[in-house]
């Protein structure tokens, strides 16, 4: 058993354990943190397969950004566990059917690929980032660009769905605030400093 293989089994065990814990723990914040651990283990396995770009980007995008926002939302939610478990018995048959369907599909997919030779070790000068870039911008340039456009549409849609003008809030626009000049706010009034009060003022 080589050192690589031992590491693979260790990280594989962590990945499976974290994934199981993620779906079984009660506290949603703990579940999110177990998902983070699962991502780390997956990244480590990718590193072992010399796919350092994918490994680092998994940590950067999913752990560094997506899961932070996930935690952000989960921490703000006041989740009532008793209400969540309501109707568990009635929905169980439907859930089991979905689970069975998923399990079948996954087994079909995995058994097609699982028996695979161990890939050849690339040389020391192999750079995963360069190798990925080279095929992504030549052979797969159209799928890549289509994916980019779909993502862009998703971004715009998400912003359009959540942005609503609410005239009742007292929101201050910082852009307008910092553009303020002195003459917008300060008015210098010249007041005569004579002690006598005029006739007109006295009559009032």
């Amino acid at each position, binding site marked *: 058993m080589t050192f690589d293989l031992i590491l693979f089994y260790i990280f594989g065990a962590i990945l499976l354990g974290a994934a199981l814990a993620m779906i079984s723990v009660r506290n949603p914040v703990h579940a999110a943190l177990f998902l983070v651990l699962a991502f780390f283990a997956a990244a480590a396995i990718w590193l072992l397969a010399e796919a350092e770009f994918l490994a680092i980007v998994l940590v950067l995008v999913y*752990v560094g950004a997506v899961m932070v926002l996930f935690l952000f939302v989960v*921490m703000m939610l006041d989740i009532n566990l008793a209400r969540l478990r309501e109707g568990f018995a009635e929905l169980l048959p439907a859930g089991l059917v979905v689970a069975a369907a998923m399990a079948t599909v996954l087994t079909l997919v995995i058994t097609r690929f699982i028996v695979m030779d161990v890939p050849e070790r690339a040389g020391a000068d192999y750079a995963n980032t360069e190798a990925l870039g080279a095929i992504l911008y030549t052979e797969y340039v159209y799928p890549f660009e289509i994916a980019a456009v779909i993502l862009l549409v998703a971004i715009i849609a998400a912003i359009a769905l959540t942005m609503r003008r609410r005239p009742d809030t007292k929101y201050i626009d910082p852009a307008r605030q910092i553009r303020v000049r002195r003459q917008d706010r300060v008015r210098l009034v010249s007041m005569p400093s004579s002690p006598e009060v005029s006739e007109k003022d006295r009559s009032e």
Partner: protein
Amino acid sequence: MFDWIMESFYSLPVVMQILFKITLIVAPLMLAVAYTTYAERKVIGYIQVRIGPNRVGPRGWLQPIADAVKLLTKEVIVPTNANRFLFLSAPVLAIAPALAAWAVIPFDDGMVLADINAGLLYLLALTSLGVYGIIIAGWASNSKYALLGALRSAAQIVSYEIAMGFALVGVIMAAGSLNVGEIVLAQQGSIYHWFLLPLFPLFLVYFISGVAETNRAPFDVAEGESEIVAGFHVEYSGMAFAVFFLAEYANMILISALTALLFFGGWLSPFEGLLPESVFAWPVLGWFLDSGVHWFLLKTAFFLFLFLWFRATFPRYRYDQIMRLGWKVLIPVTILWLFVLGVLVFLKVGPWFA
């Protein structure tokens, strides 16, 4: 003598060699962190026409040691109903990425712990992990103020990371490599070859985002003491509290070091290519004027000083102003400059891209 030391070093097992190198990086780093706190109090003191710490040791030089001893001997209090495991692991999660990032920092040509070819990506990934320490600390404390501070800080770090990432994309485009050492070597030639000139807007964006990422003034709303007492670390005491500070200062030094490496030529001397070669052969002055690790440390110290200067100069930003600066000013600037950079690289505008 020197040969003998090197020979016995290379005869050690590889794990021992790596551990020895890690010690060589982390021990001076921790010392630098301790003395950055001292420098901060002194610099801000002089800016505010005070003397600053001056009681412990000559000129207060032992102040950081006294602070460390004080914090070490204090009790670590875990609040009731706090999640004990997460509460105590949050400081570790804050400091671990700040230290691990130093593995790919080259101090001189070839003087680097791990010379990996995805170095910049690794740095970006690790700096984005520091937020976990803050967010977990805020949640595990079981305190409203801590949670609010954590949420503020998480939103801020995630927002500024985008601008930071785009600024780094510019550096990658200019250098044509993800390896930090090669990025520095791409700036070789003279002071005009440094990426400061072609990437000037990206340098500004990077440094501003760096200040925001480390939650330093003027972007320190995460700890805004007038609003939420101290933010995410309000429930921490003793060494657990100190570790958050170590992480913050280690991150400041890291951002300063990265700015020096990516935009200011790292260990390259500013006199390179300006003075005749014979000057560098002079006994002591020549060594100083030539490229070397001392230039890297000097540049890092300069940016570290800027952090302290900012803190003494600028009033704190309001939260919505921080968000506006990040999303509506810095990100458009980076995207625009990436287009300009693309044109510059395509037309091979010299001396940088020739």
